[in-house]
C-alpha cells in the first residue's frame, strides 16, 4: 500500500471553511440594529430545514427580521463572496498570473457601463439586467478579439484584448457620466459595491448562475493544476488547453457577471481570498478553488456585517470595508508564512 499523499482538499481545511461560513451566517443574522441572541438565531436557522422545529424563544417580529431582512442579505453576501473568490482563483490559474482577478476580461467595465446607462436613462429597475448584459457582452467581445488577434490563442492576447475592451467601455461610461452629472453619486455608489436586498429577489437572481459556475469550475479543478505547466506541456499530457481554458473562463465570467449584477463592483475579494487560501493550504487548485469558495463567502458576509454596523445607522460601502480589513490581513498572512508563493 502506498504512503504517497497527493495534494487534495484536506478534511481539516474543508471543516474550517464550512465553520467559517456558519460563523459568518449566524453572526450576520444575529447582529444589527436589533441584536438577537446567537443561540436563538442558530435555532431559527435550523428551523428553516424541513422537519426541524426547535424552540428559539424569538417573537414573530424577530423571526421576521431574520427571514425577511437579514438572512437574504447574509446569503447574498455569502453567494457574491463565493462567486468572486472562486472566479478569482480560477482566473489566476487559467492565466497563470497571480495578479489576475475576475474583472480582468472586461466584466467590471461592461457591468459598469450597463449600470451607468440604466441609471442615466432612469431605468433603475433593469439595472441588474443591464449590468449583467454589459458584463457578458464585454467578456464575449474580449474573447472574440483575443482569439482573432492571436493565432496561438495565448492567454497574453486575451489579457490585452481585455485591457482594450475595458478602456473602450470605460471611455463610453465616462462620457455618459459627464453628460449626466446629476447621476454621478448614484453610479459611484454602485461602483463601490453594495449588498442591498429586497427580500429574496437578488438571491434568486444570482443562485442559478452561482450553481452552474460552482459545478463547472470545481469539476475542472484538477485541469487547472495541469494547465500550470503551460499549454504546450499540458497538451503533451493529453489535455486540450484552449478548450479547458475557454470552459473555465466562461463559467467564471458567468458567475462574476451575475454577482456584479446584484452587488456592484466589490473589489479585492477575488484577488485576495484565493491568495490567502494558497498561502495557508497549499498551491494545488484542488484545494484553492473549494476553499476560496467557502472562505470568500464567509469573508464577504462578515465584511458586509462590518459595513452595516460600524457607523450605524449609516452604512459603509462594502468595497471600502473589504479593502480596509482585507489588505492588512493579507499582509499579515504574507509575512507570517514562510515565503511568498504565488
Amino acid at each position, binding site marked *: 500500500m*502506498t504512503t*504517497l*499523499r*497527493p*495534494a*487534495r482538499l484536506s478534511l481539516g481545511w474543508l471543516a474550517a471553511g464550512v465553520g467559517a461560513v456558519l460563523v459568518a451566517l449566524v453572526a450576520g443574522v444575529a447582529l444589527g440594529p436589533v441584536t438577537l441572541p446567537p443561540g436563538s438565531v442558530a435555532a431559527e436557522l435550523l428551523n428553516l430545514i424541513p422537519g426541524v422545529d426547535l424552540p428559539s424563544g424569538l417573537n414573530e417580529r424577530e423571526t421576521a427580521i431574520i427571514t425577511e431582512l437579514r438572512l437574504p442579505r447574509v446569503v447574498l453576501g455569502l453567494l457574491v463572496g463565493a462567486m468572486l473568490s472562486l472566479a478569482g482563483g480560477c482566473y489566476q490559474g487559467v492565466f497563470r498570473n497571480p495578479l489576475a482577478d475576475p474583472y480582468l476580461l472586461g466584466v467590471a467595465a461592461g457591468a459598469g457601463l450597463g449600470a451607468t446607462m440604466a441609471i442615466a436613462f432612469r431605468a433603475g429597475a433593469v439595472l441588474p439586467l443591464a449590468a449583467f448584459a454589459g458584463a457578458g457582452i464585454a467578456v464575449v467581445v474580449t474573447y472574440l478579439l483575443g482569439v482573432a488577434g492571436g493565432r496561438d490563442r495565448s492567454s497574453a492576447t486575451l489579457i490585452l484584448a481585455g485591457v482594450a475592451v475595458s478602456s473602450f467601455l470605460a471611455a463610453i461610461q465616462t462620457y455618459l457620466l459627464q453628460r449626466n452629472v446629476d447621476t454621478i453619486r448614484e453610479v459611484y455608489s454602485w461602483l463601490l459595491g453594495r449588498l442591498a436586498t429586497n427580500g429574496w429577489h437578488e438571491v434568486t437572481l444570482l443562485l442559478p448562475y452561482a450553481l452552474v459556475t460552482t459545478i463547472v469550475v470545481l*469539476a*475542472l479543478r*484538477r*485541469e487547472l*493544476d*495541469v494547465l*500550470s*505547466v*503551460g499549454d*504546450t*506541456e499540458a*497538451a*503533451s*499530457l*493529453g*489535455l*486540450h488547453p484552449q478548450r479547458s481554458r475557454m470552459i473555465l473562463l466562461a463559467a467564471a465570467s458567468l458567475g462574476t457577471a451575475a454577482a456584479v449584477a446584484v452587488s456592484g463592483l466589490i473589489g479585492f475579494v477575488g484577488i485576495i481570498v484565493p491568495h490567502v487560501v*494558497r498561502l495557508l493550504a*497549499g*498551491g*494545488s487548485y484542488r484545494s484553492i478553488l473549494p476553499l476560496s469558495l467557502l472562505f470568500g463567502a464567509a469573508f464577504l458576509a462578515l465584511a458586509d456585517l462590518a459595513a452595516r454596523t460600524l457607523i450605524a445607522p449609516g452604512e459603509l460601502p462594502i468595497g471600502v470595508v473589504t479593502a480596509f480589513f482585507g489588505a492588512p490581513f493579507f499582509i499579515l498572512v504574507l509575512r507570517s508564512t514562510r515565503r511568498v*508563493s*504565488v
Partner: protein
Amino acid sequence: MLAVEGVRVTLGDAEILHGVDLAVASGEWVTVIGPNGAGKSTLLRAVGGAVTHHGKIIIDGTPTSALPRRRRAQLVATVAQQPVVPPGMRVLDYVLLGRTPYIAPLGRESAQDLSIVEQVLDSLELRRFIGRELETLSGGERQRVFLARALAQGAPLLLLDEPTSALDIGHQQEVLELVDRLRHERALTVLATMHDLSVAGEYADRLVLLAEGRIAADGPPAQVLTEELLALHYRARVRVIAGEFGPIVVPVRLS
C-alpha cells in the same frame, strides 16, 4: 516504433522542416544533432504533437492524425527543453501530472496511478524530495523530476529535447546514464536532441544530422561524426578522435 515520412513544418511564414524522413526502431536511442536553427527541436515537437505538420508521423503503427490526444499522451512522453516550473507545486504533485492521460476528465488518481508514480520516484531516487517544492531543487534534481513525470506517463516513446543543456558535465553524465538504464529496464525508445556531439555519440545508437531542415546524415555515430560532415554543416573545424564509446569531437582553432 516511430516513422516520420516527408514531414514539413511551417512556423509563421518560414518552413522549418522541408520533408524529413526518419525511422526509429523499438528500443533504439536516436539523437538528432545539427547546428542552431536546423530544426531539431521542431522535429521533436512535431513528433510530440506540439506543432502542426504536413506529412506522416506514425507512432506504434498508428498515424498521429488518427490518435486522440489522450491516447497519444499514453504513447509519447516529452521532456521539454525548458519545462515550466509551476510555482509552489510539490515534486510529488508534479510527477503525478504525468498520469493525466489515464485519469478520467473529472476523476482523480487511482491507487494504481499512485503506485506507478511511487515506483518511478524510487527508481530515480527522488523519494526524499516528494514534499519539496519543485522550485527549490537544484538543476540536476529538477531534471530528474522532469524525467520522472515523463516516465510516469508510461509511454514507450520518450522525447528528450536538450535534456542536459542546463547541467554541468557530471550531472550530464548522471542524467544520460540514468536514461540509458531506464531505457533498458523499461524497454523505452528514445528520441533526443543534443548539442554536445561527443556526448551525443556516446549514448545514442544512431545519430541523425539535421541541417537547414533536411536530414544530412543518418547512421551510427562513427559515420555521422566525421570531420568532413561537421565542417560542411556546422562550419566547424574539429578533430575526431576514436573513443571507447564513440568518436570524441574536439574543436580546434582555425590557423
